């Protein structure tokens, strides 16, 4: 009967209830987006880092992977050293650089990765064959579009280009053997992957056998931290960072995001709370006579309080349901806008949909809805019966 009364009271003022529910829905959508934003980037980075199963990344001491143009010389020697550790199951050396495809008066420039295709962790082959031959390369769709080439075509590709003089250096004829999606690149960036030795030869690293980083896979159940320390001792020229450490650095850089989303989320929660409090308070004020009569004829204080709390809860629950749907839709929309954010891998999501985030937002909203009913229900419970009946009879 209390639920029936609560629902009936809300139905009585349908327009008002609908507006309040919509208001709460907007606040809920905002809250959900902020909860998704606060953990989305982080989770999405983690997924990206763990997706290929390489737990350690080695970069020139004092730098982060690809942060600088610094390289590590004698890659083959380092790979041999790393293989000596029984816990290391794969080592993938990677050289980052640029390649240029002469087109018209100028050149199409692409980001290039020199890898050992058998152990690489940077791209997923979509069609065709991997770049196993010395003169093969796999490229992404942006590259194909920019050069007008197709899989199977042979291109002249240069490792160096001087735009003033329009001269090319380190030229090779390479066959496009396949199409690939590059995990760590931002969208719209032309990219190609070719055998490490080929790219080294084109970019002047043939003699020093230089690479930008290594990715190291530790066997399942192996001690990642132990391997990291072993590498620090045996290959002092590199800095080994684990995913946990990388995440800590990412966290550090993302702390602004988290603070921002925390504050905006809290603001939307407060807005929802105030909205429900206002509505329920107004509704209680309109009904003081009815409430006093209920109390007079023997309805307990607890039941009056429950009924009013229920009204607030129903509004916030209704608004939350609607708002969570709205939040998911807006998050998806914002994600597509932000995925074009320059310098970030396209695979990174700002708003990551996690059921936990939805439950957390729902719980916070319902809690706020219940709290919102506390003031008006306390007022209703404290009504002086005789005086209220008298004042209402006169009014």
């Amino acid at each position, binding site marked *: *009967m209390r639920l*029936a*009364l609560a629902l*009936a*009271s809300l*139905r*009585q003022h349908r327009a008002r209830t609908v507006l309040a529910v919509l208001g709460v829905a907007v606040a809920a959508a905002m809250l959900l987006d902020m909860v998704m934003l606060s953990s989305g980037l982080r989770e999405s980075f983690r997924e990206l880092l763990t997706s290929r199963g390489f737990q350690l990344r080695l970069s020139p001491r004092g730098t982060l992977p690809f942060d600088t143009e610094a390289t590590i010389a004698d890659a083959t020697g380092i790979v041999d050293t790393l293989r000596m550790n029984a816990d290391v199951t794969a080592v993938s050396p990677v050289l980052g650089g640029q390649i240029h495809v002469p087109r018209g008066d100028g050149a199409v420039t692409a980001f290039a990765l020199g890898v050992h295709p058998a152990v690489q962790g940077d791209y997923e082959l979509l069609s065709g064959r991997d770049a196993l031959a010395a003169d093969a390369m796999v490229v992404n769709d942006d590259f194909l579009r920019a050069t007008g080439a197709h899989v199977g075509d042979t291109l002249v590709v240069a490792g160096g280009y001087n735009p003033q003089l329009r001269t090319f250096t380190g030229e090779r004829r390479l066959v496009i053997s396949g199409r690939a999606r590059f995990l760590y690149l931002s969208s719209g960036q032309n990219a190609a992957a070719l055998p490490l030795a080929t790219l080294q030869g084109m970019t002047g690293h043939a003699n020093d056998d230089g690479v930008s980083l290594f990715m190291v896979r530790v066997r399942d159940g192996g001690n990642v931290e132990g391997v990291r320390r072993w590498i620090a001792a045996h290959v002092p020229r590199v800095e080994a960072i684990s995913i946990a450490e990388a995440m800590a650095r990412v966290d550090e850089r993302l702390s602004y995001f988290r603070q921002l989303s925390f504050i905006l989320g809290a603001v939307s929660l407060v807005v929802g709370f105030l909205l429900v409090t206002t509505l329920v308070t107004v509704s209680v004020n309109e009904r003081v*006579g*009815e409430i006093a*009569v*209920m*109390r*007079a*004829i*023997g*309805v*307990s*204080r607890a*039941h009056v309080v429950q009924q009013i709390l229920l009204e607030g809860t129903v509004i916030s629950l209704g608004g939350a349901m609607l708002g969570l749907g709205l939040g998911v839709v807006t998050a998806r929309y914002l994600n597509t806008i932000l995925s074009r954010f320059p310098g970030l891998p396209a695979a990174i999501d700002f708003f990551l949909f996690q059921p936990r985030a939805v439950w957390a937002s729902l719980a916070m909203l319902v809690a706020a809805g219940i709290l919102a009913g506390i003031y008006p229900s306390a007022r209703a419970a404290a009504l002086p*019966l*005789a005086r209220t*009946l*008298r004042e*209402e*009879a006169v009014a």
Partner: protein
Amino acid sequence: MTALLSARNLRRDYLLEGEAVHAVRDVSLEIAPGDYVAIVGPSGCGKSSLLNLLGGIDRPDAGEVAIRGQRLAGLGDRELTRFRLHNIGFVFQRFYLMPVLTARENVELPMAEAGVPPAVRRARAAELLAYVGLAGRARHRPPQLSGGEQQRVAIARALANRPALVLADEPTGELDARTGAEIIALFERLNADGTTLVVVTHDEELARAARRVIHMRDGAIVHHEVLRARA
């Protein structure tokens, strides 16, 4: 015979703008089972204040009310609410039904609060509505009913938990003469069927329907009048 309700030396003062208003002064009275008492007097003489004390809606500054031997002063707030639910039916000048509930649901409300199972309370609500002559209006909401009809629903609601005593404060106060007369007839029938009634009124006709009339002035009882002996 033991009284159903006994009030001794009741006093109720209000503080109004720093001045004490003596709304009820030293009132004692007894009401026997099956009685029908009207309380009359000029406006502001303390009738409503007295009725609220008798029904446990308000607490006296001095004196004591006992109903069925239970001293109301001995009950805490929660117990007093429970006591009102089971023992006293209230009818107010304004009908004060829940506008969002149907007539039947309004009558069911006190039974639901008392924990009566839905099927039982639905049947009893239908019975009570038939008793007050509203058998066909069970599904209507208060705004769809006339003043007299609303007051009948309120009377049916007051009877829901088979109270020992029904207290009514100006039950015809907002009704026209003809509708008022119907309510008066209903009260007479109620009393004839065994309900103990205390009615505050300044409706002459309603007062004359009672067995006893208590005249009040300035918060005190000034005259007892017996119109009819109890059957």
